């Protein structure tokens, strides 16, 4: 009697199913979050109500519970959720569904035979939201929302190793706003920030979704293009250049035109590290600056 009360009072989901996947118990928490009462689902095959649950991992877990009394765990990191419940988290709607951490284990009858299994569902949406925010802050630039320098360094090393191993290639575009100091000095820093955001959003919109755009420093950006050869990357870079040049940027009552200088380079097997490639792109960018700005220089 007391246990029955706990079963419904506890702030965590508990359901029990039999070897035929029929629901035997469905506690109050499950009723609240699923919108299904215990009467609605009792005796019903769980896959009828939740067809997505009928997957390899879930069946494998049930099998290991029934055949050797194992426990099984479904982490939020890998599975996100077991049952699609609407999230009631107050931390915004980062996730479409409630994030869940679940465990599963055997229930035995008086002869010690495993007849049922229980599933315990915990709502970890808040924790997952915080984690997601932390991860974002770690790899993204606060002002522009594109990736930051730290992530560039990680990604560059990863891509370098991948190319070395699989003998493939990638290109790196590095660009810098021309005379950016003048923008800040003439129109103020809010205007400078406005220009940085404009450039980030225009370039973000122009790249493929496999490419990465980073804010490297103050007004310096990098774009990593996997599986892209130098000549193709130069074409892309020139599109960036022309696009930025053609914009009439309106800030308060001012109309500003800005240009960018670009250095482009490609991975070659002789490079010792990702940083080497960055240096080459920087060198090319330096040449672009020195030879008149608003241009693309490539270096192999």
């Amino acid at each position, binding site marked *: 009697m007391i246990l029955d009360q706990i079963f419904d009072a506890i702030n965590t989901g508990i359901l029990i199913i039999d070897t035929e996947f029929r629901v035997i118990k469905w506690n109050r928490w499950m009723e609240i979050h699923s919108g299904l009462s215990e009467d609605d689902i009792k005796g019903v095959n769980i896959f009828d109500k939740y067809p997505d649950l009928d997957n390899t*991992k879930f069946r494998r877990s049930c099998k*290991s519970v029934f*055949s050797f*009394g194992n426990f*099984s765990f479904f982490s939020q990191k890998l599975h996100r959720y077991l049952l699609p419940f609407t999230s009631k988290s107050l931390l915004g709607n980062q996730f479409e569904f409630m994030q869940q951490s679940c465990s599963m284990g055997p229930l035995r009858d008086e002869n010690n035979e495993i007849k049922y299994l229980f599933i315990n569902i915990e709502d970890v949406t808040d924790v997952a939201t915080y984690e997601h925010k932390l991860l974002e802050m770690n790899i993204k630039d606060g002002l522009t929302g594109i990736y930051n320098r730290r992530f560039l360094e990680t990604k560059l090393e990863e891509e370098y190793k991948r190319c070395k191993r699989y003998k493939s290639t990638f290109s790196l575009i590095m660009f810098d706003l021309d005379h950016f100091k003048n923008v800040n000095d003439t129109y103020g820093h809010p205007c400078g920030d406005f220009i940085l955001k404009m450039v980030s959003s225009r370039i973000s919109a122009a790249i493929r979704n496999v490419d990465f755009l980073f804010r490297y420093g103050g007004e310096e950006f990098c774009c990593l293009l996997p599986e892209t050869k130098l000549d193709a990357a130069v074409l892309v870079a020139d599109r960036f250049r022309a696009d930025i040049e053609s914009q009439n940027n309106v800030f308060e009552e001012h109309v500003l035109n800005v240009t960018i200088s670009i250095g482009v380079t490609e991975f070659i097997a002789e490079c010792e590290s990702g940083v080497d490639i960055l240096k080459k792109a920087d060198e090319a960018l330096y040449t672009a600056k020195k030879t008149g700005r608003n241009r693309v220089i490539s270096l192999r």
Partner: protein
Amino acid sequence: MSEQATDILSSDEVDTLQEIMNIAFGQSASDLSEVIDTHVVLSIPFIEFVKVTELHTYIQQHVKEYSKISIVEQKYWGKFKGDALLIFASGAGRELILLLKNDEQGSLEAGSAEILESETLLEVGNILIGACVGKLAELLNDIVTYTPPMVLVEEDARNAVPANKFDPDQTAIILKTDFNFEQGGATGFLFLVTKNESVVWLKKALQLFLEQYE
């Protein structure tokens, strides 16, 4: 380093335990192939008694051929209780990902290769530990529950098991088996570090087990 086994269990008891483990691990190997679609070869298990304070060095000795290892650790609780440490050789995680063929793999976000690797090790570790411990407990007429597994991925083999990890002044009964997966080639060791306090119960359970045949 290791103590005389007979200080804790008599030689008959050790033989019986050895026999039970042979049966248990034999059965778990066949159950495992049902669950993860490949045959897992478990070597004949090996029993040793080691002081808990020396466990760290003991485990190191056994993994010295690897520079990097991954460890899945799970506690089991029954009358039979302790820690299961499943030690995988480097690269096992990636081998096992292919083996499991989970449906979710396509939907993972960027940067989640590490998550997939650690989660795969956790899942396989959980299944393997559960199968071995569960069978052993079953033969000894015990029922165990488990804590969620924890994983350390690709750690330096020398530092992976800290020296102060286990409660000192206790003797660990180490049940060790080597395993390898027929497909994929992941290999490693399973150590069951059983607490001293299980010994009284274990002696009785071994006795009961023998009586079935007398």
